[in-house]
């Protein structure tokens, strides 16, 4: 499967009469965007805001971040199973409004997490302080149950991103990147002397505000399966989770998975990237055993010699991570794990809720318990009135001046386990 990603570099975003891209500036018709986004009888109102890098703006609570893309050739459309029919995606050509992002905010539950600061110390922790954000604030009709409310806000974000992405359909991209994974036997034969590497992509799948969808299917209900990495870039995997926002993958991160991009970067040079297995993180131990058995079997079946495994979340998924690692290693296949840590505010405690001796090559995305003070911002988009009940905060976390003291787990993407974050470690 071969996909061309045409990046249209967006240098600025402005509100305008027509939604279009002109000389690197994305103009958005606010009214039209609100209308498309709010096209659901369960939505009472939609407000549109812009938030740009460097501004004294805070967005809270962030539910999802989505990159505007449009499918210009090849089968299927963006977000198959939700916005487009369930045709297979991942081939042909897709245009990306690079640098722009749709951010959804909605008050689904009473505890608020997911903060993006566009400047100040918090901005250094979230990758979405560097994107030109079009924020859609979605208010539902009264009396909507939490499950339905979550779906309403999630789908509104996809509609908004698809609407904005359309603006890139007839624009000549600034650069075109080609990503290709061939059918397995062909791919294995292409670089016979390079180690065959597969990617095990773990998806958060536990329940309300803890779910992920693949081609419109709740990923709790899948058994692990193979997916072409390029399918992910066209929105085959979308997010339905944001609790403890530091280590959850917003849809934007799925569309831009650094693990997939880095594996493609080394493909044909140091490794033969033969494919991707998606698996879940369900609540029952039988599901965990079944999924990890299946995952280990699949990576063996495709002939992988080494595997990268990324986790999404902490606690319950640590058990899945450990099972995947142990069972794959038992088959003689090397693993490298990517996770983050809840090592206590001083970083001195055990990092994960589970462990295994086979997990001897682990990359960390940072300690989510680290404490930060976010200064007050001039503008707060979303629902600032409830910022004092941030689940990752400490007592009195919202001060009178509007500053927030909390663990970095409240910041969207701070310890992202696909590596889509800024935390790093340097040798002294």
């Amino acid at each position, binding site marked *: 499967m071969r996909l061309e990603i045409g990046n249209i570099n967006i240098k600025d975003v402005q509100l305008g009469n027509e939604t279009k891209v002109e000389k690197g500036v994305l103009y958005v018709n606010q009214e039209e965007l609100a209308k498309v986004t709010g096209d659901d009888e369960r939505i009472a109102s939609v407000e549109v805001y812009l938030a740009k890098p460097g501004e004294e703006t805070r967005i809270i609570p962030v539910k999802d971040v989505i990159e505007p893309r449009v499918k210009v050739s090849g089968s299927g459309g963006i977000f198959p199973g939700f916005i487009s029919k369930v045709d297979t995606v991942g081939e042909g050509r897709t245009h990306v409004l690079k640098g722009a992002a749709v951010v959804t905010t909605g008050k689904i*539950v*009473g*505890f608020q997490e997911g903060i993006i600061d566009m400047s100040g110390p918090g901005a250094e922790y979230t990758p979405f302080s560097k994107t030109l954000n079009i924020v859609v604030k979605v208010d539902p009709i009264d009396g909507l149950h*939490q*499950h339905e409310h979550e779906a309403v806000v999630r789908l509104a974000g996809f509609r908004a991103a698809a609407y904005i992405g359309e603006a890139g359909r007839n624009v000549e991209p600034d650069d075109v990147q080609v990503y290709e994974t061939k059918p397995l036997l062909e791919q294995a034969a292409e670089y016979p002397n390079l180690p065959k590497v597969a990617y095990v992509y773990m998806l*958060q799948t*536990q*329940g*309300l*505000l*803890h779910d992920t969808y693949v081609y419109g299917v709740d990923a*709790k*209900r899948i058994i692990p399966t193979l997916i072409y990495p390029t399918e992910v870039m066209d929105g085959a995997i979308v997010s339905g*989770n944001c*609790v*403890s926002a530091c280590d*959850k993958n917003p849809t934007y991160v799925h569309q831009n998975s650094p693990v997939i991009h880095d594996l493609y970067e080394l493909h044909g040079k140091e490794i033969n990237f033969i494919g991707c297995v998606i698996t879940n993180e*369900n*609540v*029952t*131990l*039988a*599901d*965990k055993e079944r999924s990890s058995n299946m995952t280990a079997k699949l990576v063996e079946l495709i002939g992988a010699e080494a595997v990268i495994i990324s986790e999404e*979340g*902490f*606690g*319950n998924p*640590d*058990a899945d991570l450990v099972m995947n690692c142990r069972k794959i290693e038992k088959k003689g296949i090397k693993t490298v794990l990517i996770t983050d840590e*809840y090592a*206590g505010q001083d970083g001195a*405690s*055990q990092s994960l*809720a*589970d462990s295994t001796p086979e997990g001897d090559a682990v990359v960390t995305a940072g300690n989510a318990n680290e404490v930060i003070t976010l200064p007050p911002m001039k503008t707060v988009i979303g629902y600032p009135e409830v910022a004092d*009940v*941030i*689940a*990752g*905060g*400490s*007592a009195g*976390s919202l001060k009178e001046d509007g500053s927030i003291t909390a663990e970095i787990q409240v910041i969207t993407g701070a310890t992202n386990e696909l590596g889509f974050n800024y935390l790093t470690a340097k040798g002294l």
Partner: protein
Amino acid sequence: MKPILITNNPLVWQTYPESIQIKGSFREVLLRARDGIHRGQRLITHPLTGSLKPNQTPYKSIILDEEPGNQAIDLVSLQMIEKSLATVDKLGPIKVQLTAKMLEDYQVIDLSFIESAWDSLRPLGIKTR
């Protein structure tokens, strides 16, 4: 399989009247689960379901399998509950003031994990209420 549901979540008590009601903390639910494991019960659900940490939500529901007559200790369950208790102790107590709306939402989310588990058990013909 004979699932038993132990919970300190009033919404789960209400939804599943046969559940074992723990009038205590998150940690006490785990301790009760550990007692069961010592008597031969096995964990059906992971003790640390959800991204809400034990120092954020007060609610926890766990499903165990109580196979009649079984007294053998399942070491996988034992290890998992001990590691989970260690995580609870590491993270410490809840530090924020919980509002009525937060408590309600935490209950709904905890219930959704149990619903998610029953969905997984449905093919086995397990009676859920």
